[in-house]
């Protein structure tokens, strides 16, 4: 065998032969690589074009009013972003809204006060999320499969309770929350969403919980080997998503003042679309709350502008679908195909 070490052992830890910088050297064009930057530009563009073409667009009251159209969806987009970052997905969110709203209606009939209704909605959402999460984590089922099933189940339960009836007669206060303002200018659901977004952003980008979410999305096995309680995080995210859907149900029910089993039909795909446009990769591990917020605003302003121009909703779906395809395809086309391979 070969001889022993011919190097003299240094007393202090050896300096490496390689220097490792803390960060890549900053280059201004890196800024443009950020999805958020592109979204911000898009937002400005959308607003500018709308403002130029539509006389009523920049009316502050109108802008404030327009937020009611997307605030509830935006609330769910936040936890959905976390789920997708973790390589999971929840298709049942809109069905959870329906079930939570039905629970509110039942509670309302039983004379529960408004604050109680909020708690009932959130509790129902949490329970639904718990079921999803338990099926996904305990049985190791793919979340898309589980939530396709539970979507049917939740909405079905709502329809079992309600049949062809509707819950109405909600207290006045709910309406204030659903479509009222703070200080007569700030739409309440929007403000609540902003606050929630700040909390989520801190959670995801600043805390160690958030770091672990990225780790799980990146490589769940390695994360588990590194001491991250992967399943507990997954479960928590499903529960959180359910709870946020419950919260959204509270605002939506307040806004429309009634409950029917087909409430919020088809929202799940809009929410997922917004999250993906926000730069959250469906493959997990990347994305930011800032991106999701910007994408919510882009979509909100875009659809609002189209609605002001009285363009039929179905054309809007073409625009949104094409936007989704364009935003993911164009960067890839510009970069060329040289990034292919492994």
């Amino acid at each position, binding site marked *: 065998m070969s001889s022993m070490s011919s190097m003299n052992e240094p007393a202090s830890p050896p300096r490496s032969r390689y220097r490792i910088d803390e960060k890549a050297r900053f280059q201004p064009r890196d800024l443009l690589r950020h999805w958020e930057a592109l979204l911000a530009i898009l937002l400005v563009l959308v607003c500018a074009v709308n403002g130029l073409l539509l006389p009523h667009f920049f009316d502050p009251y109108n802008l404030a009013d327009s937020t009611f159209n997307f605030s509830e969806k935006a609330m769910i987009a936040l936890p959905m972003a976390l789920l997708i970052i973790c390589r999971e997905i929840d298709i049942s969110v809109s069905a959870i809204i329906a079930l939570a709203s039905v629970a509110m209606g039942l509670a309302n009939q039983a004379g529960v006060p408004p604050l109680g209704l909020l708690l009932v909605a959130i509790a129902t959402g949490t329970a639904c999320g718990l079921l999803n999460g338990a099926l996904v984590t305990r049985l190791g*089922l793919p979340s898309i499969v589980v939530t396709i099933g539970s979507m049917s189940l939740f*909405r079905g339960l709502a329809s079992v309770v309600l049949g062809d009836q509707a819950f109405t007669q909600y207290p006045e206060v709910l309406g204030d929350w659903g479509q009222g303002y703070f200080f007569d200018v700030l739409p309440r659901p929007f403000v609540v969403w902003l606050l929630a977004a700040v909390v989520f952003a801190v959670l995801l980008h600043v805390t160690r919980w958030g770091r672990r979410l990225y780790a799980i999305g990146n490589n769940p096995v390695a994360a588990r080997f590194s001491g991250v309680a992967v399943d507990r995080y997954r479960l928590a995210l499903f529960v959180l998503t359910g709870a946020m859907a419950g919260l959204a149900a509270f605002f939506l029910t307040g806004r429309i003042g009634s409950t029917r089993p087909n409430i919020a039909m088809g929202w799940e795909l809009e929410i997922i*679309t917004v999250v993906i446009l926000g730069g959250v990769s469906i493959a997990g591990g990347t994305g930011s709350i800032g991106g999701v917020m910007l994408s919510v605003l882009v979509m909100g302003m875009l659809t609002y502008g189209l609605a002001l121009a009285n363009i039929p909703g179905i054309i809007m779906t073409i625009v949104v*679908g094409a936007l989704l395809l364009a935003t*993911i*395809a164009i960067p*890839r086309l510009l970069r060329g195909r040289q990034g292919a391979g492994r």
Partner: protein
Amino acid sequence: MALNFLTSLRASSAPGREAGEPLWQRREPLLALLTVVLILLVGVRAPVFLSAQSMDNLLTDSAITIMLALAQMLVILTRGIDLSVASNLALSGMMSALLAMHFPALPVGVFILMAVLIGLMLGLLNGWLIGYLELPPIVVTLGSMSVYRGMVFVLSGGAWVSSRNMPADFIAFPLARLGGLTHLVWLGALAVVAIWFLARHTRFGRDLYAIGNDPAAAAYVGIASRGRLLWTYGLSGAMAGLAGYLWVARYAVAYTEIAYGFELTVIAACVIGGVSIAGGVGQVSGAVLGALFLSVINNALPIMRISPFWQSALTGLVILCAVVLNARGKQGRRKQILPLHGQKSVITGSRA
């Protein structure tokens, strides 16, 4: 000389192509059994469900779901998903209906061919984005789903094409009978055989399994994944196109919202049939049974006089149960290091 590292190998040379677990532990026979039991249970409550006419109708009704589930299976095998099938169906169905409305004299074959071609084009667009631009399938098809659905509206101007506007033979074809069975059933059977052959006996099909198992490894062994993906989505599109014609003709009406949300039914059929969303695992028999299973439920619920308000909840419950059962079957199959109880260790030893 044999190596003695074979000790951990348990699965060996079972008869049949897919060596492995015995028949009764496999998913497909279990699902077949479950479907039969379900049919019998429904029959107990509503004997009319077991009548020949009703069975015939069940088969006819499941044909479209089966065809789409098969194509979707191929897509899911590659770790993909095609959410745009229902929109594609609506668009190609509407276009063939519009064609039939404006040129009623053309033979039916032309309309069918047009529907298939239109579906193929739409599918190839997905395939190009997914295969050549390497974009995530769920995002691409989510986008194209909206675009295609919107196009139906734009092309038709939002108007219906109703039975009055369609030539008689256009409407008659799907339910016309050949040897006692409807054309729909024959087409479904043809699709089963064709996709079975494709998936089992062609390089194309086997490549899809390989891509789904490990896309990077597929590139390493020289599988042209891009082309394969392009044509897989193309096939899914063409199938949706065919289904589009059949749908429009069968129900004798075309409007913007036909088959709204049907993609989830198709995917659920695959999932119930044991096609793994993670790719690389799935059998034609599974997809067919999954689709049949859903069709049985959908057809049985109205006949059983169950309150319409319970239908969605029951469907959801059944899907969840099927999925949970599937998962339980999968657990417990891990590698085994210890010699199994009562079996002598299998050290093959070295040959001198």
